[in-house]
């Protein structure tokens, strides 16, 4: 049973190792001549103004939150979808009720203007 996870662990290690090995190889093959001007941060060719940390809009957070709600909803729907072939029509109707309640939430968010980027 753990064969699956052993294979996946090995695969993930190899898939992280291969680009790392390539980057290491390129690090040895490439020249290293840092100077002051090359190492400055790029800001359209002028000197950087102000701190690097800029305060963001709250819209990012709202989108993240709505995405979280819908992600959890779809996690509930996955076992239902796996059992879809063997359930009766009432099971489908219950899941539709589940989806409709959350679509109602999406409509609320839409009307309140939470889905606008600006």
């Amino acid at each position: 049973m753990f064969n699956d996870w052993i294979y996946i662990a090995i695969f993930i290690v190899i898939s992280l190792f291969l680009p790392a090995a390539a980057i290491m190889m390129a690090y040895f093959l490439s020249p290293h001549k840092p100077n002051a001007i090359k190492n400055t941060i790029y800001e359209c060719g002028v000197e950087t103004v102000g701190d690097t940390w800029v305060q963001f809009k709250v819209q990012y957070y709202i989108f993240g939150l709505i995405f979280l709600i819908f992600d959890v909803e779809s996690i509930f729907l996955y076992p239902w979808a796996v059992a879809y072939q063997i359930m009766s029509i009432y099971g489908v109707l219950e899941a539709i009720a589940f989806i409709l309640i959350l679509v109602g939430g999406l409509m609320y968010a839409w009307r309140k203007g939470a889905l606008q980027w600006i």
Partner: protein
Amino acid sequence: MSFVADPINFIADWLSKLLLGWGLPPDLVMVLLFIIGSGLLATVAMLWVTILIWYERKIIGRIQDRFGPNRVGPYGLFQSIADMIKIFTKEHISPDGVDWFPFTIAPIIAVGAVLAVWAVIPFSANFVGTNLSVGILFILAIGGIGEFGIVFGGWGSNNKYALLSAFRAVAQLISYETPYVICFLIPVMLSGSMNLNDIVKAQDPWFIFLAPLGALIFFITSIAEVGRTPFDLAEAESELVAGFNIEYSGLKFGMFYVGDFLHSFTISLLFAALFLGGWKGPWAEQIPVLGFVYFFIKSSAAYFLVILLRASMPRFRIDQMMDFTWKVLTPLSLTVVSMTALVDKLLPANLIWVRIGGLILLNIIIFIATDRLLDIYWKKPLFQKNNQVEDASKASSVKLGAG
């Protein structure tokens, strides 16, 4: 099984008999075979990207009425190798004040997260990396880790524009992940399992005929997940100064590029496996190599569509993208899932043509209804600039707000 019909399993069997004959314990033999198999698969995937880059450049060139690369090698086949050699020897510039751990690990995660998906894809009837019973959710979970590659890259660069661009890219990715995750429900529902090999085996009529609208939404959202045109606001050369990979040079930038192409091919592999019947075709079960060939043809066709979209469509603005996903694609995908579930239970399953006809009719009805609704209620046309947006963007550019 003979060598011609099923080369990979034949070699794996021969190798395992050889290693067991040398007296190694069977667990160690299994682990060694895993290492060799996954190493080969990952290496083939990385080398395949060079052919993909060549393919894309030639096709985009032809669409734009010019030759693609045709100097280096016959038909320009060695162009990618020449580019690889060039990018291997470029200097790795590390700007001032970068956070070295996120900065270095971002390209590795960006490529590793895409490569890890190849572990669960069924390439033929009995060549699949691992038959994980929750393969679909595994793919989604690895996509979530891939988003962190972008966050690390943007944060580690110590650059305002990289940070802004990285967060805008992550906002786009999570917004398009909502209909993406919901559209994966359709093959799971129609086949009754989350295992990709089972989904391919259950496709007696291909799922694209049972849920064409679901396949369309899957295709669109997966292109947005990759970050290709028309959704490449976060990383195009003219937007936000080339996005979160501003400060990357040398092979680190090359790795982001490779990850982008590998991801595009991986989503066409997924589209072929989930909706186009995967390795199924005439005689695919008896001769597994043939299944591999069918799968390759189908995913190349899907990849061709992806390239076609890139070559022919202009880019979306960020607010158009967000409107499209939250207001159109999410309700549409939820509607498609629930209506397909309802109608599929009501139709008799043994009359195949009634089932296909009923579901296609349902998809046509939903599509026409969506079209009418968009016409009536979307007072401004969806993909055009209007005064409201122009004024707002002028007002926001005066303030020093970010985002």
